[in-house]
């Protein structure tokens, strides 16, 4: 039996990986932090809500649906809003502001949906949690296995895509230098659209799994967004692998750190959980603004590769 604290931490870290990988991917291709990112997860949450509460189906059926809706929505945002703004020559800062507007619009739409359900079907449509609907796998909640598997698949899948496929290499080329990539025949627009599609899908997926372990509500996304920022920044913001590592580190520190502090200082600490990723973020920016990736590169630049250290030992 795994202690519930560990389950909590791993679950949260898995969700953060799904979110921070997507966040970093859009940052790399569009060069802007997408403030609307966490609202994709909000959409996923309400897909699960609809599937489970209204259609009375298994909540896991919502996962692929949430992925598709999130993906479609991500691509829609990129093509319609970001693409148009780029075409009209908007600066990166104004595109970023527009993502804040998108966040507010999507949040309003989710809230309208929640209000509508509450009014027409008389079901409580905020602060829901479906832990009781989950299956058990080896004595543990099923969502733990599912989310860990998904996070693992995501890491392996991304690695294979970026290193072994033509499209992944095109994606890396676009990230490095989109002008040069397009000269070499890479369809930069397509690469960007696909990366937004993946981002939206992954965030939708994370959102659809969230209510199986945590409380879901339209405002949850706003809260998680800070942890996503922290994960991405800790990972060096411009590295997919860094974001994955950052997601795990922030997820575990946030949950385990809160529990540890609660032991020392008392249970009131749990309300200020948000301050942990915020502090990590501030420390990283102050001390090592390029995050884990920067630290690793710094070590490599001094000629200290892992291989060499091992050889020295031998």
């Amino acid at each position, binding site marked *: 039996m795994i202690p519930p604290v560990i389950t909590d931490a791993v679950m949260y870290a898995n969700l953060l990986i799904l979110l921070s990988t997507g966040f970093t991917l859009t*940052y790399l291709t569009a060069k*802007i*932090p997408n*403030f609307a990112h966490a609202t994709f997860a909000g959409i996923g949450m309400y897909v699960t809500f609809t599937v489970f509460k209204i259609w009375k189906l298994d909540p896991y059926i919502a996962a692929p649906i949430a992925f598709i809706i999130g993906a479609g929505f991500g691509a829609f945002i990129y093509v319609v*809003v970001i693409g*148009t*703004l780029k075409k*009209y*020559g*908007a600066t*990166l*800062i*104004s*595109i*970023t*502001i*527009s993502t*804040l*507007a*998108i966040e*507010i*619009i999507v*949040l*309003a*739409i989710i*809230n*309208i949906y929640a*209000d*509508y359900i509450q*009014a*027409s079907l008389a079901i409580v449509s905020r602060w829901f949690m479906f832990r009781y609907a989950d299956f058990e796998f080896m004595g543990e909640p099923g969502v733990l296995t599912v989310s860990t598997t998904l996070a693992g698949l995501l890491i392996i899948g991304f690695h294979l895509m970026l290193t072994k496929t033509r499209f992944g290499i095109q994606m890396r080329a676009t990230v490095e230098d989109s002008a040069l990539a397009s000269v070499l025949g890479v369809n930069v627009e397509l690469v960007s659209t696909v990366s937004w599609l993946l981002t939206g899908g992954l965030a939708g997926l994370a959102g659809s799994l969230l209510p199986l372990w945590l409380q879901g509500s339209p405002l949850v996304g*706003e*809260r998680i*967004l*800070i942890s996503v*920022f*922290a994960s991405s*920044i800790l990972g060096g*913001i411009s590295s997919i692998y860094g974001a994955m590592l950052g997601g795990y580190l922030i997820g575990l520190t946030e949950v385990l750190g809160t529990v540890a502090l609660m032991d020392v200082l008392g249970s*009131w600490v749990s*309300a*200020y959980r*948000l*301050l942990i*990723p*915020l502090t990590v*973020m*501030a*420390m990283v*920016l*102050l001390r090592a*603004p390029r995050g884990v990736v920067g630290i690793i590169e710094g070590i490599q630049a001094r000629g200290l590769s892992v291989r060499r250290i091992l050889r020295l030992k031998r």
Partner: protein
Amino acid sequence: MIDIGLLINIIIDVLAFLAIYLILAVSLNLQYGYTGIPNFGLALSAAGGAYVTGALTGRIAMTIYGVGEGLDFMSDNTKITELINARLSHDPLMGILIFILIIAIAAVINAGLGYIASRPAIKLRADYLMMTLIAMAEAARVIGLNYYPLVGGTFWVHVPDLFAWMGDMRNVGVCLVIFAISLIVFLAVQVMVTSPYGRLLRAVRDNEVTAECVGKDVVKIRTKVIIIGSVIASLAGVLYSFHLQTVLAAAFKRTDWTFWPWLMVMVGGPSNNIGGAVGTLVVILTRRMIIYYKHYFEAYVPFEVIWLEQIMLGLALILIMVFRPQGLIPEKPTRVRGLPTKPSQKPREKSKEA
């Protein structure tokens, strides 16, 4: 027929909100429009100002008047506020003194908050700063919502009416005070940006490398502007709390205190204070219209009208970005005191010919 008293109240309400948001728009314009700092943490300063007002006004007045012996400030808040208000209604001098004191404390505390919040990312690219500041504003809200002694957590705290001595004219009086302060801030920033310092700010915005080359410390200038901007924005929080006579931590949402000011500045035209004022007027009037007429909508839609308002204004921002990124009133070459009124075009043409 139309009730005159109600009409006056509506006008006062709109004017007060206009003045409060004008302060925020001016603060943002100074930071983003003139210096190019995308401050996404305006809600932090507004909340900071309101928290200072909520936490300190009552406590200071309580100590000065010695009322409420044996009462707890938070749990007997309504009673204490009533006692203080009774004393304040005969004591204009003390009311004004406390008002000035609160503004001063809020300014000092928010200057510090602005410095701390911007410190981690001030030397880095703009997107880091945006993320940090938005996170800091969220943290301020979380602290306000959970730390009960500050402003009552999920409840609220009453702010003693420092203008109780105005009697029946209290609402009009407070509105005038807010308006006067707003005007002073507007003019002060206007003077600042038309001075040589304003030129320096625009140099930092347009090309920081050049600014550094001529020996200007860009990070220092940015820090200064963020501190000034935070102090100005905190005034909005202070005045808002005195206007409503309550502070509610849950009210300091990103939408209301960061997004609306951004929308105002973008509508009116960044780096243009007049534009900022026009933008504020447009947005506030639209919002207030929706609020006053919302019961007409409410009969037809099965959800709260506030969401519709958010969708509309969110779309408005995107449309403005696409079709009129320079805003309603675009930036003009600013007249700088001591230089000819019209910048002559001749040298540029000459260089083209050559």
